[in-house]
């Protein structure tokens, strides 16, 4: 199979689309930002997040499109949610 990547289709357009990943190991822990994932849609983001951040058997994991996050302290700037 020849690999031909269509950046517009496969990586979510001219600008990459990111999803922020949050998880907790048990119900006592707070939901914590553990990283981000690039994907053109929710389904691929869900799968990639699950497979990439598999260093714990998470009790709960969720993803949020970066575009849905309302910045407060960094309003107006291009700052993104930062991975610690």
């Amino acid at each position, binding site marked *: *199979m020849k*690999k031909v*990547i*269509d950046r517009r*289709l*496969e*990586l979510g357009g001219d600008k990459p689309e990111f999803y922020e990943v949050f998880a907790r190991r048990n119900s006592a822990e707070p939901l914590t930002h553990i990283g981000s*994932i*690039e*994907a*053109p*849609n*929710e*389904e*691929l*983001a*869900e*799968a*990639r997040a*699950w*497979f*990439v951040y*598999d260093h714990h058997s998470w009790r709960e994991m969720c993803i949020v499109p970066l575009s849905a996050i309302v910045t407060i302290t960094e309003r107006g700037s291009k700052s993104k949610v930062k991975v610690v």
Partner: protein
Amino acid sequence: MADVNPIGDLSKTDQYLRDELYCIADAKLVLAGWYMLVLQNGRSIADFTSICAMMQGQYGHARAIYQHLGRFGVTREETEWTRGAKDIRSPKLLDRPPQSWPDFIATIFLAEHAISTQLSAYKTNPADRTLARLADKVLKESRFHLSYSVGWIKTLRKDPASTVDEDGRRRLVDALDWWGDSDQPDILFTSGYRSAPDSELRDCFLKAVGATFDVPDGIASPARSWQRSIRRNGSPGIPENLFEKIRFKNRELAMP
């Protein structure tokens, strides 16, 4: 038809169960081989990671089901090391290697759905709780494999020239070969090992696939010479060239 792996002293029901689990585990073994072969076609590091994880998942599931076959006297030597191409009972759907990225995505979508649909009927099996727990665990892990393929199908469809729907329609005919002849007695259902008969599982599969691909009305796979023990029409086994790609290469290094 003669048993591919005759083992004496098993009841008829146990023979059927052993055969069906062999088919499910072999489907996962070959599917793992597919993931291994296309790994370098991933689109990004996250994609490579996903394909690696799905490959590892399928190998892990195959290994766990093979281990469960020990209940029927099947040994690890037989399942992993000594069988040839003619003994592998994977679905016909996986015989033909992927022809393109869209074909790969359409095929793994159908294969993952087919295997999960069949396995879902063992989730509540009261006769074998170990198998029920195993089925439940495999199904939970497979959910993300389906998300991956559905996400890719949606992505590929953005391109009007994409062949993913055509690939899906073509592969669906082969996928249905797994449920072959509904007129044959379904002992696993009637004896309570499976919660649904093959005919109902085939309908569930078509319904699940229909949520993503157009399923033509009245689509049917001809019964011809369907054999329950291998869940496919025609002669047993997979093509030699496919087996050569996925087979365990260094038996002498692994044999105790």
